């Protein structure tokens, strides 16, 4: 259980401290270095000596060629830790210039290659994670809050509230969500500021997926409210609010946690999909979706395999979340049985 959780937490820490770990500015361009393949780390130099500190060679364009590079073995650039680089903000609060690693200029280290403007993919993936994961997490929060609220009302008060909420929930469940997202997105302005777009994405994604948590919460509330201690509490004159808070809602926490672990990757993927289709955040801001959108160009898809790196990161994240969800589910079952 804890291995998966710690792994996931580490991944998130990497994304939160993107500014520190990324060696370059995500929007800093090197127009003369488009589509550089990932820089190779060397340990053994030309004379055959082993170095504990890895070093790289500068990637230079091969003469008379387009987008082909070779390593110039003239000078080795050792990787340096805690170096000063472009300014960034730690968690959006303190500004700093210290980066975890980098190399001396004029060499550049591209751990995941560079894109068509010569921007460092590695830095862009880390910064893009902030947007994609942030959107996923916030949208999950919205979805769960809506689901909890509506599910509780519908389970606790029953009758017409229950009827109407559950019918709507069924509708949302069967609708093809991507069409729904696109339709909602279509009726909202197309060109707006990045922050507005982000909020819009979060709200749209979050409000489409409330149905499943709502149904689960309703089920739990329905069984919880018939428990003897709830009936007893009601007999002693407890208010609805008190019963809900003390006796009913604690039952739902487990389900909410599992749902959260399942929904976050789904919503991250939803954000990625929308950005991929060009309806999310737009360039130059990176998000995993618009990083992947580069692959819509045929030549990029065929020739530059490192442009798939964001996809790999995405898969690792969803694997992590699903593993955690699986664990939580097993834990819950072992408690209730």
């Amino acid at each position, binding site marked *: 259980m804890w291995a998966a959780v710690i792994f996931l937490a580490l991944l998130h820490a990497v994304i939160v401290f993107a500014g520190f770990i990324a060696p370059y500015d995500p929007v800093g361009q090197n127009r003369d270095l488009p589509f550089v393949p990932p820089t190779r780390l060397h340990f053994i130099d030309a004379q055959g000596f082993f170095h504990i500190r890895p070093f790289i060679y500068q990637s230079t364009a091969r003469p008379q060629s387009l987008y082909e590079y070779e390593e110039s073995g003239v000078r080795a650039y050792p990787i340096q830790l805690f170096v000063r680089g472009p300014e960034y903000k730690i968690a959006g609060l303190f500004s700093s210039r210290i980066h975890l690693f980098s190399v001396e200029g004029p060499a550049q280290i591209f751990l995941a290659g560079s894109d068509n403007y010569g921007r460092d993919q590695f830095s862009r993936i880390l910064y893009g994670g902030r947007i994609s994961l942030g959107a996923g997490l916030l949208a999950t929060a919205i979805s769960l809050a809506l689901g909890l609220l509506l599910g509780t009302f519908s389970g606790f008060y029953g009758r017409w509230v229950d009827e109407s909420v559950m019918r709507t929930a069924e*509708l949302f*469940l*069967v*609708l*093809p*969500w*991507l*069409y*729904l997202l*696109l*339709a909602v*997105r*279509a*009726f909202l*302005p*197309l*060109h707006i500021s990045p922050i507005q777009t982000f909020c819009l994405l979060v709200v749209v994604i979050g409000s489409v997926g409330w149905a499943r948590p709502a149904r689960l919460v309703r089920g739990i509330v329905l069984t919880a409210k018939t428990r003897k201690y709830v009936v007893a509490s009601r007999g002693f004159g407890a208010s609805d609010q008190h019963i809900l808070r003390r006796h009913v809602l604690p039952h739902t926490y487990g389900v909410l946690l599992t749902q959260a672990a399942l929904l976050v*990757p789904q919503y991250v*993927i939803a954000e*990625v*999909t929308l950005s*991929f*289709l*060009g*309806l999310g955040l737009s360039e130059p801001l990176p998000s995993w979706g618009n990083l*992947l959108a580069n*692959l*819509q160009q*045929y030549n990029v*898809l*065929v020739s530059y*395999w490192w442009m*798939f790196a964001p*996809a790999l990161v*995405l*898969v690792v994240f*969803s*694997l992590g*979340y*699903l593993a955690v969800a*699986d664990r939580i589910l097993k834990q819950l079952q072992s408690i209730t049985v």
Partner: protein
Amino acid sequence: MLCFLFADLAPGSFFDEITLNPQISPETVAALRSHYGLDQPTPVRYVRWVTSVFKGEWGYSFAYNRSVSSLLTVRAGNTLLLTGMATLLVWLIAVPLGIWIADHSDGWVDRLCMRTTSVLLSVPELVVALGLLYLVVRTHVLPAGGMVSLGFDQLGRWSKLSDSMMHLMVPVITLVLSSLPILLRHVRASMVEVLNTPFIHAARGHGVARARLLFYYALPAAANPLISLFGFSVGGLLSGSLLVEVVTGWPGLGPLLLEATMSRDLYVVVGAVMSSTLLMIVGNLLADVMLVAADPRVRMQ
């Protein structure tokens, strides 16, 4: 439910957003707007739109300059072909395989399937589609993108068919790969549950042959949740197909909807969403009919 859907998705006040080229003079814009009736108040436009739906036109596309329904029928047919093929294939794989691994649960094939599906579950469709495209482009096994090859019209009947089939492969495989894990797990789960019930034990005790036991006794008992799942999975498949269509260049509803969203061709957006909803409702209806056919308890109600 149908009525509600229509009311929900019908155009209300969304038409103020049509962005037009700044090079076009305001008079031309005004003339265009009055030509398409966009200067009318919302209720009038709504009534007009509804009458056009009843006339079978479903409004008018500004970008394509023709009625929306003429656009949609072709596109929806393509989407239907794609999702239909994918659905057929995925059920043909999932049901026998699911039954088999349920029968041999905890065998190595079972464990292998569970492992593979849990990995596949966390690979999004987008990544599957892109990866597959990459493979296809690299190896030249299958054509990538589009629906037919260049020079399709010159081909004979059989080579036409095989050409279309080849083009179908990439999107269909993507859809199958992304919807198989969930389905397989459900089939397995419901079969395992049924196989542990007393009546199956009794049948087994009476020496009923294995194949007869599995397909004649257990499968009908396990079918109920699976058929409901079919209804739900249609929506998922449609969503998936939208993305896959865009990535692989399959001319279905997906690219049309995306284009229309980008260019604010709102009647087309509404039409595409409604026809996808229609496809989905038909899927659900089919599931209900099958449920009635398969489950005597439902028939009793």
